[in-house]
C-alpha cells in the first residue's frame, strides 16, 4: 500500500521493494495454516465416513438386537447428523480430546502421540543416516560427472530407490537378526509393546532402531543423491563458476560457492523426505513391528477403529503442514532469491 507522502519526495526512485521482514513472513505463514487446517480436518472426518462398512460391527455382538445397535450408535454419537458429529468431534479436538479408541478404550490422543513419537524417532534416525550419505554421494557424483565414480553412485542410487524396501527389511532381518543374531528384529525395545511408550536412550532400546532406520534410509539416500547430483552438475556448468575461477579463486573456494548455491534446493528436498519419513512407513513398521504411526494407522484401519483412525490422520496431516512450513521458512531464510512477499 502506498502510504500518503511516501511517493511525494521528488527525484527519489525506489528501485526495488524491500523484502518483508522474516518475523512478519513467519506470522503470515502461520495465519495461512488456519484455513488449511480446517479444510484438512473436514476431509479427515469425511474420509472415514465415506468408507464403506459399519465401524461398530467389530465390537458389536453378532446377535445384537435393533435396540442394542441403536443404543451403541447413540453411545458413540453416530446417530447424529454428520455436521453435528463433526462439530462435536472438532470441538473436543481443539481441547486435545480425540475420543477413545473403540478397540482398546484408551484415549486416542495418547495413542497417537506415542505412535508419532516412535515414528519421529525412526524418521530422525533414518535421516541421520540418509542425509549425510545422500548429500556426499550426490555431491561426488555431480562433481565427477560422467566418470566411473558418477556411474557407480548412480547405479547404487537407482537400486536404492527401486528396491522394495520392505523386502530389504526382511533380508536385513534374516541376515542380522536370524543368522548373525546381532540385532533384534521386532519392536522398539523393553516396555514398548502394547502401545505403552517406554523409550530410553540406552543400547537396549537403540539397537532396536538400527535395522528399521537403515531400511528406511535407503530410498531417501537414493532420492537425495540423485537430486544433489543433478543440482551440483547444473551449478558447475553455470557461467558464474567460470567467473569464479577467472577472478582467481582456488578449487576449495569455488566448491564453497557451489555448496552455497546448492543448499536451498538440497534443503527442500531433504525437508520433503523428512516429511515423508515422519509420516511413518506402514510397511516398514509392520515388518519390524515398530509401534509408530504407520503401524497404528494400519491397526486402526483393519479394526475399523473410527476415532483412532480420524485422530491419527488428523494429527499426521497437521504434522505435514507444519513440516512444510518449516522447510519453506528455512528456505526463505537462506536463499536471497526467494522474495518473501
Amino acid at each position, binding site marked *: 500500500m502506498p502510504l500518503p507522502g511516501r511517493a511525494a519526495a521528488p527525484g527519489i526512485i525506489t528501485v526495488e521493494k524491500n523484502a518483508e521482514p522474516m518475523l512478519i513472513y513467519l506470522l503470515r505463514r502461520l495465519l495461512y495454516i488456519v484455513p488449511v487446517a480446517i479444510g484438512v480436518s473436514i476431509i479427515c472426518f469425511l474420509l472415514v465416513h465415506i468408507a464403506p462398512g459399519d465401524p461398530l460391527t467389530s465390537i458389536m455382538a453378532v446377535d445384537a438386537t435393533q435396540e442394542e445397535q441403536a443404543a451403541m450408535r447413540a453411545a458413540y454419537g453416530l446417530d447424529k447428523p454428520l455436521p453435528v458429529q463433526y462439530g462435536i468431534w472438532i470441538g473436543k479436538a481443539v481441547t486435545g480430546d480425540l475420543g477413545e479408541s473403540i478397540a482398546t478404550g484408551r484415549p486416542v490422543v495418547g495413542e497417537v502421540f506415542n505412535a508419532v513419537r516412535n515414528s519421529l524417532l525412526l524418521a530422525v534416525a533414518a535421516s541421520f543416516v540418509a542425509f549425510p550419505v545422500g548429500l556426499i554421494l550426490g555431491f561426488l557424483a555431480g562433481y565427477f560427472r560422467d566418470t566411473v565414480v558418477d556411474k557407480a553412485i548412480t547405479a547404487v542410487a537407482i537400486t536404492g530407490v527401486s528396491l522394495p524396501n520392505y523386502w530389504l527389511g526382511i533380508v536385513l532381518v534374516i541376515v542380522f537378526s536370524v543368522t548373525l543374531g546381532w540385532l533384534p528384529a521386532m519392536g522398539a525395545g523393553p516396555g514398548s509393546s502394547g502401545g505403552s511408550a517406554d523409550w530410553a536412550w540406552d543400547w537396549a532400546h537403540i539397537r532396536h532402531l538400527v535395522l528399521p532406520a537403515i531400511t528406511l534410509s535407503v530410498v531417501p539416500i537414493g532420492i537425495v543423491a540423485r537430486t544433489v547430483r543433478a543440482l551440483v552438475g547444473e551449478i558447475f556448468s*553455470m*557461467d*558464474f563458476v*567460470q*567467473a*569464479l575461477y577467472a577472478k582467481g*579463486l582456488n578449487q576449495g573456494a569455488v566448491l564453497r560457492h557451489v555448496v552455497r548455491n546448492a543448499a536451498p534446493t538440497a534443503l527442500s528436498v531433504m525437508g520433503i523426505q523428512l516429511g515423508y519419513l515422519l509420516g511413518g512407513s506402514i510397511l516398514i513398521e509392520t515388518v519390524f513391528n515398530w509401534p509408530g504411526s504407520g503401524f497404528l494407522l494400519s491397526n486402526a484401519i483393519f479394526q475399523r477403529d473410527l476415532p483412532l483412525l480420524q485422530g491419527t490422520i488428523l494429527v499426521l496431516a497437521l504434522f505435514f503442514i507444519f513440516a512444510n512450513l518449516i522447510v519453506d521458512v528455512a528456505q526463505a531464510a537462506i536463499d*536471497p532469491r526467494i522474495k518473501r512477499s
Partner: protein
Amino acid sequence: MSEAPLLEIENLHVRFNGERTVHAINGLNLRLQEGEMLGLLGESGSGKSVTLKTLLRLLPPKRAEIDGTIRVNGTDIMTLSGARLSAYRGGDVSMVFQEPALALDPVYTIGDQIAETVMRHKSVGRAEAREVALDMLTRVRIPSPERRLKNYPHEMSGGMRQRAMIALALACRPKLLLADEPTTALDATVQIQILLLLRELQREFGMSIIFVTHDIGVAVEISDRVAVMYAGNVVESGSTRDIIKDARHPYTRGLLAANLHGVDRGTRLDAIAGSPPSLETKPDVCSFAPRCTEAQPQCLRALPPFFAPSPGRQVACNLEEGHSPASNGLTAAPAIA
C-alpha cells in the same frame, strides 16, 4: 625500439575434442601493448570467447587441446598452475563476461563477491576488502554504493550488474582486462554508458583492454586498434584509423560495407552472404574463400600468407601478393619500426 609487449600470443591452436571436433583457434597471433585498447571483432563462432578463455586458462583441460605460446609480461602463462595460476587470474588479467546476470554468483551479495576477490589477491582483512569494494563501486559510478554493496545480483538492473562486474574485475588493478561482449546483453543507451565507462577507467587505471564485439561500429568507436577474426584466426589487424580508411581483407571490407551502407549500428555481422565454416577439420585453405567474391585459384590451394601493407598492419589474403611485403604473421603493435 619499442618496449616488450604486455601480451604476446604466438601460433595459438585450440581444438575441442568430444562428440564433435572443433578447430576453434587455428594459428592465431596477437600482440598488445601496455595501455592499449584492442577491439577483437568477428562474427559469432569465430573464436573470440575461446581466445579470451585460453588467456585465462579457463577451458576444460580434458576437452580442449591447446598449442602455442602465450606470454603476459614475459611469463609463459601455459606453464602456470596452483597458487601462481590463481594469482594470475584476477590479479594480472581479469575478465568481464557477456551476461552479468549469469556471471555473478546469485546467492552472494555484490560486496561479498568483490571483497572475496580482494582478500584472495591482496592478503587484506574483511573490513579493508569491503572498503576496496565500496571504492570500486564508486569508481564505476554506481549510485548509493553503500547500499548496493548489500544487494544481491537479482536486485540490480542489467546495466548496474555489468558495472558491478566491472568493479569486481578491476578491484585488484589488473594490467589487462578482457571484456567479452560486455554490452551485447544490454539496452542501446546502457551500452553506450558502459562503453564510455570502460574508456574512462582504462585511462584512469592505465590498463590494456581487449574488447570483444561482433559489432564493427562499437569496435571502431572504442578501440585504438582492431583485430578481425575469422574461423579461429586474425585475418586483418591494424590501427582503427587504417582499418576504416583502407581495409584490405575482403571480409573486413564486407563488414565495413554492411555497416556503412546505412545499416544501423548493432546489426549482426551476418550481412555478408554465406555462413562461416564448421571448423570440424583444420583449415588448410583460405577459410573465407567460399564467401569471397574475389577468390583466386591459389586461395583454394593453401592458407594465404600474412602481408604487412604498412607498419603495424597485418593481412592474411592472397590479394596482397605483389602489393605488400610478406610478414611473419605477428600482429605488430603500432610502435614497432
